[in-house]
């Protein structure tokens, strides 16, 4: 995320360079040309940013204060927001998204890290295991959903058959209010291949001497994890947590596919925030109301990101900063 730091020494060099006695007029035109060239190269993104990001971003804020059906927007002040906080389904969807995030984030981080640690062991055929562990995360998401809804079918699914065979309770999974959220969390855990590979790359970049020194100090596997691996991986953990958070805030496809007969069901147990936003916008065309939801989503995610970055100075260790 903060890769720009790598460019800093160059920038510093430039600044130092400007003190050198030189023909200042020629210098300025030279740096002006560079600025022009640089801007020309990034101009596709600048145009795209203004058109597809800045404009819709501010338009969302504007629409959120209006009654908007797609053609005419009528200013209604804070009404949308007031309605929002009195809307029980809005609160439910907010809670469900929060619930999913709070469980999925640590569990998937632990799972990805655990798998990466397993793959980092010195065994034959490591590459084969890595391939197999990674594959679930490239399965098209809709296909993963189909597989899970089939395997976890309460009546005919293989999972419940195995559970009954082991004399364990056989829950209703995606179709029971109590188990629907855990089922989606399980589905998420199946696809942790992406962070797993990133963690594995991080693990392999930890110099072997660090382990040797720790072994001399009598560190066991637990201390090794706690005092070497986790601190060394902390920037990568932050990176993956950010990606996961963005995904959790936009949790949509899985519910849409799996609960396709009864979106948000059973009951209201799987209404997710953006699910509700999507319904209000594209099924009921309440574009002002859904814009208010979109703006609120932005505010929440901005707050969470700022808090995360603030806290990161306490737990993220940058080896290069020493």
């Amino acid at each position: 995320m903060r890769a720009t730091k790598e460019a800093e020494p160059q920038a510093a060099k430039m600044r130092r360079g400007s003190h050198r006695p030189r023909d200042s007029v020629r210098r300025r035109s030279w740096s002006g040309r560079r600025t022009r060239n640089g801007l020309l190269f990034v101009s596709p993104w600048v145009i795209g940013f203004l058109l597809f990001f800045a404009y819709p971003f501010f338009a969302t804020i504007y629409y959120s204060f209006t009654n908007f059906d797609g053609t005419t927007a009528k200013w209604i002040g804070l009404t949308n927001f007031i309605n929002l906080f009195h809307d029980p389904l809005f609160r439910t969807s907010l809670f469900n998204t929060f619930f999913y995030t709070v469980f999925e984030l640590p569990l998937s981080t632990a799972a990805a890290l655990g798998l990466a640690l397993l793959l980092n062991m010195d065994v034959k055929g490591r590459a084969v295991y890595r391939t197999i562990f990674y594959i679930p995360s490239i399965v098209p998401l809709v296909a993963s959903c189909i597989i899970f809804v089939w395997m976890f079918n309460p009546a005919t699914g293989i999972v419940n058959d195995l559970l009954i065979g082991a004399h364990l309770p056989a829950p209703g999974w995606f179709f029971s209010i109590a188990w629907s959220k855990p089922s989606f969390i399980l589905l998420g855990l199946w696809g942790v291949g992406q962070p797993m590979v990133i963690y594995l790359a991080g693990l392999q970049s930890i110099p072997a001497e660090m382990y040797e020194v720790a072994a001399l100090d009598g560190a066991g596997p637990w201390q090794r994890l706690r005092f070497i691996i986790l601190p060394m991986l902390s920037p990568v953990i932050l990176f993956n947590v950010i990606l996961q958070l963005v995904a959790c805030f936009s949790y949509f496809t899985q519910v849409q596919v799996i609960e396709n007969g009864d979106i948000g069901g059973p009951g209201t147990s799987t209404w997710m925030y953006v699910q509700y936003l999507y319904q209000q916008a594209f099924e009921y065309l309440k574009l002002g109301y859904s814009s208010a939801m979109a703006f609120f989503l932005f505010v929440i995610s901005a707050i969470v990101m700022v808090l995360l970055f603030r806290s990161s100075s306490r737990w993220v260790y940058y080896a290069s900063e020493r």
Partner: protein
Amino acid sequence: MRLAVNGRTLHKVVAGLGKHAVLLVVTVVLGFPLLWMVLTSLKSNYQSLHIPPVWWPHPILWRNYPQMIHAVAFYRFVLNTLMYAGLTIVGVCISSSLVAYGFSRIRWRGRDFLFQVMVSTMLIPFFATLIPLFVMYRHFHMVGWYLPLVVPTFLGSSVFSSFLLRQFFMTIPQSVSDAARMDGANELTIFSRVILRMAKPALATVILFQFIYCWNDYLGPLIYINTQTWYPISLGLYFILGTYTTNWPWVMAAATAATLPIIVLFFFTQRTFIAGIAIQGTGAKG
């Protein structure tokens, strides 16, 4: 002495077996859903719904595949997806490489600030800007086909690709550009003749990731594509799931047909793939 050595070897062998046992258990747990998908796709409808479940399809019904493909015109979904992927790949390769060059190979005032702005847009939820975009595309009569998903890629919408290419461009020594400048080459020439040629592996990674993104993309097409003849694979699968709710072997045949090409592709491009993800991870380092 000899005994001790043997003891140590024995210990090593046991530890090795233990590691393999753990890895194998995880392999079975992670691999089973895919195996079950393929097995179900080869069963008869009766067998697939049998309680207790039938493990091995008997007889093996390969004909589920041609039947399913014929019934839903599955090849159309594939062709649409290939078109979607092809168009966006062109867009991403052109715009992201230009943008990445501007953010890495030229030093200019405000560059690092703009780069940070670009990266931070990745953190903003897709839904925060969706509604005005939809209204805008509808106003220009672009809804119903892939234009709303393709046009932005020509304007650097794939921040991930620009980021990845920039990370790669930064590893090319500045002296390469300086030498070309000495020969009187301008930036565009250096970009197209020197840097792009060196960046082939990075471009391959970008193309691969963009292809997989399009193959899996569900939300974009769901919002902008509304006729079945233009459905990509993801929407096609969703359609099949909703239409053949009582014919799970067909649904599973479709899921297998959507998954297998990606897995095969992964096997042939593993190195490019893993390298690309590792580059992503380097973004995490300060």
